[in-house]
Protein backbone atom coordinates (compact mmCIF):
# COMPACT_ATOMS: atom_id res chain seq x y z
CA UNK A 1 0.00 0.00 0.00
CA UNK A 2 1.22 3.46 -0.91
CA UNK A 3 0.67 5.34 2.33
CA UNK A 4 1.78 8.96 2.50
CA UNK A 5 1.99 11.56 5.23
CA UNK A 6 1.54 15.14 4.02
CA UNK A 7 4.65 17.04 5.03
CA UNK A 8 4.13 20.78 5.33
CA UNK A 9 6.39 21.47 8.26
CA UNK A 10 3.63 21.52 10.87
CA UNK A 11 4.75 19.55 13.85
CA UNK A 12 6.25 16.27 14.76
CA UNK A 13 5.24 13.31 12.60
CA UNK A 14 7.74 10.76 13.88
CA UNK A 15 5.16 9.20 16.21
CA UNK A 16 2.71 8.67 13.35
CA UNK A 17 5.36 7.01 11.22
CA UNK A 18 6.34 4.74 14.11
CA UNK A 19 2.69 3.83 14.78
CA UNK A 20 2.24 2.62 11.20
CA UNK A 21 5.60 0.88 11.36
CA UNK A 22 4.32 -1.10 14.38
CA UNK A 23 1.39 -2.19 12.18
CA UNK A 24 3.82 -3.25 9.45
CA UNK A 25 3.34 -0.32 7.10
CA UNK A 26 5.78 2.22 5.80
CA UNK A 27 4.27 5.72 5.84
CA UNK A 28 6.39 7.99 3.68
CA UNK A 29 6.59 11.75 4.15
CA UNK A 30 5.92 13.85 1.11
CA UNK A 31 5.10 17.37 0.03
CA UNK A 32 5.03 16.45 -3.66
CA UNK A 33 1.62 16.92 -5.31
CA UNK A 34 2.04 14.02 -7.74
CA UNK A 35 3.03 11.61 -5.02
CA UNK A 36 0.06 12.71 -2.92
CA UNK A 37 -2.33 12.35 -5.88
CA UNK A 38 -1.31 8.79 -6.66
CA UNK A 39 -1.06 7.50 -3.07
CA UNK A 40 -3.61 4.92 -1.86
CA UNK A 41 -4.12 6.56 1.51
CA UNK A 42 -3.15 9.95 2.92
CA UNK A 43 -2.44 11.09 6.46
CA UNK A 44 -2.81 14.81 7.07
CA UNK A 45 -1.16 15.58 10.43
CA UNK A 46 -0.65 18.84 12.26
CA UNK A 47 0.54 20.18 15.55
CA UNK A 48 0.97 23.82 16.46
CA UNK A 49 -0.85 27.01 15.62
CA UNK A 50 -3.62 27.07 12.96
CA UNK A 51 -2.89 30.27 11.03
CA UNK A 52 0.80 29.53 10.56
CA UNK A 53 0.02 25.93 9.57
CA UNK A 54 -2.50 27.20 7.01
CA UNK A 55 0.05 29.66 5.67
CA UNK A 56 2.49 26.79 5.12
CA UNK A 57 -0.21 24.81 3.29
CA UNK A 58 -0.89 27.76 1.01
CA UNK A 59 2.77 28.33 0.27
CA UNK A 60 3.01 24.80 -1.08
CA UNK A 61 -0.35 24.90 -2.89
CA UNK A 62 -1.57 21.98 -0.77
CA UNK A 63 -4.61 23.98 0.32
CA UNK A 64 -6.15 23.53 -3.12
CA UNK A 65 -4.88 19.99 -3.67
CA UNK A 66 -6.14 18.34 -0.48
CA UNK A 67 -9.89 19.08 -0.91
CA UNK A 68 -9.72 17.51 -4.40
CA UNK A 69 -8.32 14.17 -3.28
CA UNK A 70 -10.42 11.07 -4.00
CA UNK A 71 -8.63 8.47 -1.87
CA UNK A 72 -9.19 8.11 1.91
CA UNK A 73 -7.60 11.00 3.81
CA UNK A 74 -7.18 11.02 7.60
CA UNK A 75 -6.63 14.36 9.31
CA UNK A 76 -5.19 14.18 12.81
CA UNK A 77 -5.51 16.86 15.53
CA UNK A 78 -4.74 20.25 13.93
CA UNK A 79 -4.96 18.47 10.56
CA UNK A 80 -8.62 17.73 11.29
CA UNK A 81 -9.24 21.28 12.47
CA UNK A 82 -7.77 22.75 9.28
CA UNK A 83 -10.17 20.57 7.25
CA UNK A 84 -13.12 22.44 8.84
CA UNK A 85 -14.70 25.65 7.53
CA UNK A 86 -13.09 28.01 9.98
CA UNK A 87 -11.15 28.06 13.21
CA UNK A 88 -11.08 30.73 15.88
CA UNK A 89 -7.37 30.15 16.32
CA UNK A 90 -5.77 33.07 14.51
CA UNK A 91 -9.20 33.65 12.83
CA UNK A 92 -8.22 31.13 10.15
CA UNK A 93 -10.20 30.07 7.09
CA UNK A 94 -10.00 26.27 6.77
CA UNK A 95 -10.17 23.91 3.81
CA UNK A 96 -13.99 23.65 4.03
CA UNK A 97 -14.10 19.85 3.87
CA UNK A 98 -15.99 19.47 7.16
CA UNK A 99 -18.88 21.88 7.50
CA UNK A 100 -18.31 22.99 11.02
CA UNK A 101 -16.34 25.57 12.95
CA UNK A 102 -13.54 25.21 15.45
CA UNK A 103 -13.78 27.13 18.73
CA UNK A 104 -11.68 27.58 21.84
CA UNK A 105 -12.65 25.87 25.10
CA UNK A 106 -13.77 28.39 27.68
CA UNK A 107 -11.76 29.06 30.80
CA UNK A 108 -14.30 27.14 32.87
CA UNK A 109 -12.09 24.13 32.15
CA UNK A 110 -8.33 23.66 32.05
CA UNK A 111 -6.96 24.54 28.63
CA UNK A 112 -5.46 22.61 26.89
CA UNK A 113 -7.51 19.51 27.49
CA UNK A 114 -4.71 17.03 28.05
CA UNK A 115 -5.13 13.31 28.57
CA UNK A 116 -7.45 10.40 27.89
CA UNK A 117 -11.13 10.96 27.21
CA UNK A 118 -13.91 8.69 25.97
CA UNK A 119 -15.34 8.59 22.46
CA UNK A 120 -19.03 7.80 21.99
CA UNK A 121 -21.90 7.84 19.47
CA UNK A 122 -19.49 6.08 17.12
CA UNK A 123 -20.83 6.06 13.57
CA UNK A 124 -18.24 4.96 11.07
CA UNK A 125 -16.22 1.95 9.86
CA UNK A 126 -13.30 3.94 11.16
CA UNK A 127 -14.44 2.78 14.63
CA UNK A 128 -14.85 -0.90 13.75
CA UNK A 129 -13.98 -3.07 16.79
CA UNK A 130 -13.78 0.03 18.97
CA UNK A 131 -16.43 0.25 21.69
CA UNK A 132 -18.57 3.10 22.94
CA UNK A 133 -16.72 4.66 25.83
CA UNK A 134 -13.23 3.55 24.78
CA UNK A 135 -10.44 6.00 25.55
CA UNK A 136 -8.32 8.10 23.21
CA UNK A 137 -5.46 10.49 23.99
CA UNK A 138 -6.14 14.16 23.30
CA UNK A 139 -4.18 17.39 23.59
CA UNK A 140 -6.01 20.45 22.32
CA UNK A 141 -7.27 23.91 23.17
CA UNK A 142 -9.75 24.20 20.29
CA UNK A 143 -12.62 21.85 19.40
CA UNK A 144 -14.84 21.23 16.36
CA UNK A 145 -18.52 21.90 16.94
CA UNK A 146 -20.86 18.94 16.64
CA UNK A 147 -22.42 18.75 13.12
CA UNK A 148 -23.99 16.33 10.57
CA UNK A 149 -20.57 14.92 9.76
CA UNK A 150 -19.74 14.00 13.35
CA UNK A 151 -18.83 10.31 13.73
CA UNK A 152 -17.70 10.46 17.38
CA UNK A 153 -18.30 12.84 20.23
CA UNK A 154 -16.30 13.54 23.36
CA UNK A 155 -17.27 15.57 26.38
CA UNK A 156 -15.14 18.33 27.86
CA UNK A 157 -17.27 21.18 29.16
CA UNK A 158 -19.52 20.52 26.18
CA UNK A 159 -20.08 17.68 23.74
CA UNK A 160 -17.99 18.25 20.63
CA UNK A 161 -16.99 16.35 17.50
CA UNK A 162 -13.90 14.29 18.24
CA UNK A 163 -14.12 12.65 14.82
CA UNK A 164 -15.64 13.72 11.49
CA UNK A 165 -16.33 12.07 8.15
CA UNK A 166 -17.34 13.47 4.77
CA UNK A 167 -17.13 11.05 1.81
CA UNK A 168 -13.47 10.01 1.54
CA UNK A 169 -12.33 12.46 4.21
CA UNK A 170 -11.89 11.53 7.86
CA UNK A 171 -10.68 13.63 10.75
CA UNK A 172 -9.87 12.78 14.36
CA UNK A 173 -9.12 15.23 17.13
CA UNK A 174 -7.36 12.61 19.25
CA UNK A 175 -3.94 11.11 18.55
CA UNK A 176 -4.50 7.49 17.46
CA UNK A 177 -0.72 7.06 17.26
CA UNK A 178 -0.56 7.71 21.04
CA UNK A 179 -3.80 6.05 22.11
CA UNK A 180 -2.56 2.57 22.94
CA UNK A 181 -4.35 -0.46 21.47
CA UNK A 182 -7.53 1.49 20.72
CA UNK A 183 -5.62 3.98 18.62
CA UNK A 184 -3.86 1.19 16.79
CA UNK A 185 -7.21 -0.36 15.97
CA UNK A 186 -8.39 2.93 14.46
CA UNK A 187 -5.28 3.22 12.28
CA UNK A 188 -5.79 -0.40 11.19
CA UNK A 189 -9.40 0.43 10.31
CA UNK A 190 -8.27 3.38 8.23
CA UNK A 191 -5.86 1.14 6.33
CA UNK A 192 -8.70 -1.35 5.74
CA UNK A 193 -11.12 1.24 4.29
Amino acid at each position, binding site marked *: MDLRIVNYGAGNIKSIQFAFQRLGYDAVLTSDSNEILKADKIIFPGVG*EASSAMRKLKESGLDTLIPQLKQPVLGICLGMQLMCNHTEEGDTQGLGIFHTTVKRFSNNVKVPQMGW*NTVKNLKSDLFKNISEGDYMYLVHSYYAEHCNETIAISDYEIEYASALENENFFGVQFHPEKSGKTGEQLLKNFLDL
Partner: protein
Amino acid sequence: MLTKRIVPCLDIKDGRTVKGVNFVDLRDAGDPVELAKQYALLGADELVFLDISATQEKRKTMHDMVLKVAEQVNIPFTVGGGISSVADVDDLLHCGADKVSINSSAVKRPELINELSQKFGSQCVVVAIDAKKIGEKWFLHLAGGTIPTEIKLFEWAKEVEERGAGEILFTSMNHDGTKAGFANEALAKLSDLVNIPIIASGGAGTIQHFADTFKIGKADAALAASVFHFGEIPIIELKKELRKQNIEVRL
Protein backbone atom coordinates in the same frame (compact mmCIF):
# COMPACT_ATOMS: atom_id res chain seq x y z
CA MET B 1 -15.09 12.70 30.76
CA LEU B 2 -11.43 13.49 30.79
CA THR B 3 -9.69 11.03 33.09
CA LYS B 4 -7.06 11.61 35.77
CA ARG B 5 -3.65 10.42 34.63
CA ILE B 6 -1.24 8.05 36.36
CA VAL B 7 2.33 8.79 35.36
CA PRO B 8 5.34 6.62 36.27
CA CYS B 9 8.62 8.53 36.19
CA LEU B 10 11.90 6.91 35.16
CA ASP B 11 15.29 8.37 36.02
CA ILE B 12 17.73 7.78 33.18
CA LYS B 13 21.50 7.93 33.29
CA ASP B 14 23.61 7.14 30.23
CA GLY B 15 20.57 5.63 28.55
CA ARG B 16 19.73 3.27 31.43
CA THR B 17 17.15 3.42 34.21
CA VAL B 18 18.82 4.38 37.45
CA LYS B 19 16.69 3.42 40.40
CA GLY B 20 16.18 -0.26 40.90
CA VAL B 21 13.11 -1.53 39.19
CA ASN B 22 11.65 -4.74 40.41
CA PHE B 23 7.99 -5.27 39.59
CA VAL B 24 7.76 -7.71 36.73
CA ASP B 25 9.81 -10.31 34.96
CA LEU B 26 11.82 -8.16 32.67
CA ARG B 27 14.84 -9.50 30.89
CA ASP B 28 16.54 -6.22 31.56
CA ALA B 29 14.96 -3.90 34.11
CA GLY B 30 17.64 -1.33 33.35
CA ASP B 31 16.41 -0.98 29.78
CA PRO B 32 14.05 2.02 29.65
CA VAL B 33 12.44 0.82 26.44
CA GLU B 34 11.48 -2.58 27.89
CA LEU B 35 10.21 -0.89 31.00
CA ALA B 36 8.21 1.70 29.09
CA LYS B 37 6.52 -1.00 27.02
CA GLN B 38 5.66 -2.88 30.17
CA TYR B 39 4.20 0.22 31.81
CA ALA B 40 2.09 0.93 28.72
CA LEU B 41 0.66 -2.59 28.94
CA LEU B 42 0.04 -2.29 32.66
CA GLY B 43 -2.16 0.79 32.26
CA ALA B 44 0.13 3.80 32.70
CA ASP B 45 -1.43 6.83 31.00
CA GLU B 46 1.84 8.46 30.09
CA LEU B 47 5.49 8.33 31.07
CA VAL B 48 8.15 10.78 32.13
CA PHE B 49 11.85 10.16 31.47
CA LEU B 50 14.18 12.30 33.48
CA ASP B 51 17.73 12.44 32.14
CA ILE B 52 20.21 12.85 34.95
CA SER B 53 23.32 12.39 32.78
CA ALA B 54 25.89 15.01 33.47
CA THR B 55 27.65 15.51 30.17
CA GLN B 56 26.72 16.58 26.68
CA GLU B 57 28.07 13.37 25.09
CA LYS B 58 25.73 11.34 27.21
CA ARG B 59 22.79 13.39 25.93
CA LYS B 60 23.35 11.76 22.56
CA THR B 61 22.58 8.47 24.29
CA MET B 62 19.35 10.05 25.50
CA HIS B 63 18.37 10.85 21.92
CA ASP B 64 18.86 7.23 20.93
CA MET B 65 16.71 6.16 23.86
CA VAL B 66 13.93 8.61 22.97
CA LEU B 67 13.94 7.35 19.42
CA LYS B 68 13.60 3.75 20.57
CA VAL B 69 10.82 4.57 23.03
CA ALA B 70 8.89 6.45 20.33
CA GLU B 71 9.37 3.54 17.98
CA GLN B 72 7.99 0.94 20.37
CA VAL B 73 5.65 2.61 22.86
CA ASN B 74 2.08 3.61 21.99
CA ILE B 75 1.34 6.07 24.81
CA PRO B 76 2.62 9.65 25.22
CA PHE B 77 5.85 10.48 27.00
CA THR B 78 7.70 13.51 28.30
CA VAL B 79 11.46 13.96 28.41
CA GLY B 80 13.17 16.22 30.93
CA GLY B 81 16.61 16.97 32.30
CA GLY B 82 19.27 19.32 31.03
CA ILE B 83 17.10 20.98 28.38
CA SER B 84 18.10 24.61 27.96
CA SER B 85 17.50 25.74 24.39
CA VAL B 86 15.09 25.69 21.47
CA ALA B 87 17.60 23.46 19.65
CA ASP B 88 17.58 20.90 22.49
CA VAL B 89 13.80 20.67 22.27
CA ASP B 90 13.81 20.51 18.48
CA ASP B 91 16.15 17.49 18.68
CA LEU B 92 14.02 15.66 21.25
CA LEU B 93 10.74 16.28 19.44
CA HIS B 94 12.32 15.07 16.22
CA CYS B 95 13.30 11.87 18.00
CA GLY B 96 9.60 11.41 18.82
CA ALA B 97 9.16 12.84 22.33
CA ASP B 98 5.63 14.20 22.82
CA LYS B 99 6.48 16.77 25.45
CA VAL B 100 9.57 18.20 27.09
CA SER B 101 9.95 19.31 30.65
CA ILE B 102 12.14 22.27 31.60
CA ASN B 103 13.04 23.39 35.08
CA SER B 104 16.19 25.34 36.03
CA SER B 105 16.70 26.64 32.49
CA ALA B 106 13.26 28.29 32.64
CA VAL B 107 14.11 29.98 35.93
CA LYS B 108 17.44 31.22 34.60
CA ARG B 109 15.86 32.49 31.40
CA PRO B 110 12.06 32.64 31.54
CA GLU B 111 11.86 33.75 27.87
CA LEU B 112 12.70 30.16 26.98
CA ILE B 113 9.09 29.23 27.83
CA ASN B 114 7.77 31.81 25.36
CA GLU B 115 10.20 30.70 22.67
CA LEU B 116 9.28 27.04 23.06
CA SER B 117 5.53 27.55 23.13
CA GLN B 118 5.67 29.84 20.10
CA LYS B 119 7.79 27.47 18.07
CA PHE B 120 6.37 24.10 19.10
CA GLY B 121 3.04 24.91 20.77
CA SER B 122 2.12 25.03 24.46
CA GLN B 123 0.95 21.43 24.38
CA CYS B 124 4.51 20.11 24.45
CA VAL B 125 5.95 22.49 27.05
CA VAL B 126 5.87 21.18 30.61
CA VAL B 127 7.41 23.43 33.25
CA ALA B 128 8.66 21.43 36.24
CA ILE B 129 8.68 23.33 39.52
CA ASP B 130 10.47 22.06 42.62
CA ALA B 131 9.51 23.99 45.73
CA LYS B 132 9.94 23.80 49.46
CA LYS B 133 7.71 25.24 52.16
CA ILE B 134 9.74 27.39 54.51
CA GLY B 135 7.67 28.86 57.30
CA GLU B 136 4.37 29.71 55.65
CA LYS B 137 5.77 30.32 52.17
CA TRP B 138 6.75 28.09 49.27
CA PHE B 139 10.07 28.87 47.55
CA LEU B 140 11.51 27.48 44.32
CA HIS B 141 14.55 25.25 44.56
CA LEU B 142 16.86 24.43 41.68
CA ALA B 143 19.20 21.61 40.69
CA GLY B 144 17.03 18.80 41.99
CA GLY B 145 15.95 20.81 45.00
CA THR B 146 19.46 21.52 46.28
CA ILE B 147 19.71 25.24 45.54
CA PRO B 148 17.18 27.51 47.27
CA THR B 149 15.93 30.66 45.55
CA GLU B 150 13.88 33.67 46.61
CA ILE B 151 11.28 32.97 43.94
CA LYS B 152 7.80 32.31 45.27
CA LEU B 153 5.99 29.23 43.98
CA PHE B 154 2.61 30.77 43.18
CA GLU B 155 4.02 33.85 41.48
CA TRP B 156 6.26 31.68 39.34
CA ALA B 157 3.39 29.31 38.45
CA LYS B 158 1.29 32.23 37.22
CA GLU B 159 4.22 33.55 35.21
CA VAL B 160 4.96 30.24 33.47
CA GLU B 161 1.30 29.94 32.50
CA GLU B 162 1.33 33.46 31.05
CA ARG B 163 4.51 32.71 29.15
CA GLY B 164 2.86 29.73 27.45
CA ALA B 165 3.53 26.60 29.50
CA GLY B 166 1.02 23.86 28.65
CA GLU B 167 1.32 22.03 31.94
CA ILE B 168 2.99 22.31 35.36
CA LEU B 169 4.77 19.43 37.07
CA PHE B 170 4.91 20.40 40.73
CA THR B 171 7.21 18.56 43.12
CA SER B 172 7.12 19.36 46.81
CA MET B 173 10.59 18.93 48.28
CA ASN B 174 8.95 18.60 51.70
CA HIS B 175 7.01 15.56 50.54
CA ASP B 176 9.35 13.96 47.98
CA GLY B 177 10.65 10.62 49.23
CA THR B 178 8.51 10.61 52.38
CA LYS B 179 5.75 8.33 51.08
CA ALA B 180 3.43 10.31 53.35
CA GLY B 181 1.16 11.77 50.67
CA PHE B 182 1.22 14.62 48.15
CA ALA B 183 1.30 18.35 48.98
CA ASN B 184 -2.43 18.66 48.47
CA GLU B 185 -2.95 22.09 49.96
CA ALA B 186 -0.38 23.72 47.68
CA LEU B 187 -1.60 21.65 44.74
CA ALA B 188 -5.20 22.77 45.19
CA LYS B 189 -4.09 26.37 45.41
CA LEU B 190 -2.06 25.96 42.20
CA SER B 191 -4.98 24.35 40.43
CA ASP B 192 -7.27 27.26 41.36
CA LEU B 193 -4.64 29.81 40.41
CA VAL B 194 -3.74 28.66 36.90
CA ASN B 195 -5.86 27.26 34.10
CA ILE B 196 -3.43 24.64 32.78
CA PRO B 197 -3.17 21.02 33.95
CA ILE B 198 -1.14 20.26 37.10
CA ILE B 199 0.84 17.06 37.63
CA ALA B 200 1.33 16.26 41.32
CA SER B 201 4.70 14.82 42.30
CA GLY B 202 6.42 13.85 45.53
CA GLY B 203 5.04 11.83 48.42
CA ALA B 204 3.14 8.91 46.89
CA GLY B 205 3.07 5.99 49.31
CA THR B 206 -0.41 4.48 49.24
CA ILE B 207 -3.38 4.20 46.91
CA GLN B 208 -5.30 6.63 49.10
CA HIS B 209 -2.59 9.25 48.56
CA PHE B 210 -3.45 9.24 44.86
CA ALA B 211 -7.18 9.49 45.58
CA ASP B 212 -6.51 12.41 47.92
CA THR B 213 -4.33 14.30 45.47
CA PHE B 214 -7.07 14.10 42.84
CA LYS B 215 -9.92 14.98 45.21
CA ILE B 216 -8.32 17.35 47.71
CA GLY B 217 -5.28 18.46 45.69
CA LYS B 218 -7.39 18.88 42.49
CA ALA B 219 -4.47 17.48 40.49
CA ASP B 220 -4.99 16.47 36.87
CA ALA B 221 -2.29 13.81 36.95
CA ALA B 222 -0.13 12.15 39.58
CA LEU B 223 3.47 11.15 39.11
CA ALA B 224 5.42 8.60 41.13
CA ALA B 225 8.51 6.44 40.81
CA SER B 226 9.39 3.90 43.48
CA VAL B 227 5.85 2.79 44.42
CA PHE B 228 5.45 1.70 40.81
CA HIS B 229 8.98 0.47 40.15
CA PHE B 230 8.98 -1.85 43.15
CA GLY B 231 5.46 -3.09 42.53
CA GLU B 232 4.19 -1.68 45.81
CA ILE B 233 1.22 -0.22 43.98
CA PRO B 234 0.14 -2.06 40.81
CA ILE B 235 -1.33 0.53 38.44
CA ILE B 236 -4.42 -1.55 37.65
CA GLU B 237 -5.24 -1.98 41.35
CA LEU B 238 -4.72 1.73 41.87
CA LYS B 239 -7.06 2.64 39.05
CA LYS B 240 -9.76 0.21 40.18
CA GLU B 241 -9.74 1.76 43.63
CA LEU B 242 -9.81 5.29 42.20
CA ARG B 243 -12.82 4.39 40.10
CA LYS B 244 -14.50 2.94 43.18
CA GLN B 245 -14.03 6.37 44.77
CA ASN B 246 -15.72 8.00 41.75
CA ILE B 247 -12.52 9.34 40.25
CA GLU B 248 -12.52 9.04 36.44
CA VAL B 249 -9.67 6.88 35.21
CA ARG B 250 -8.89 4.93 32.05
CA LEU B 251 -9.32 1.22 32.71
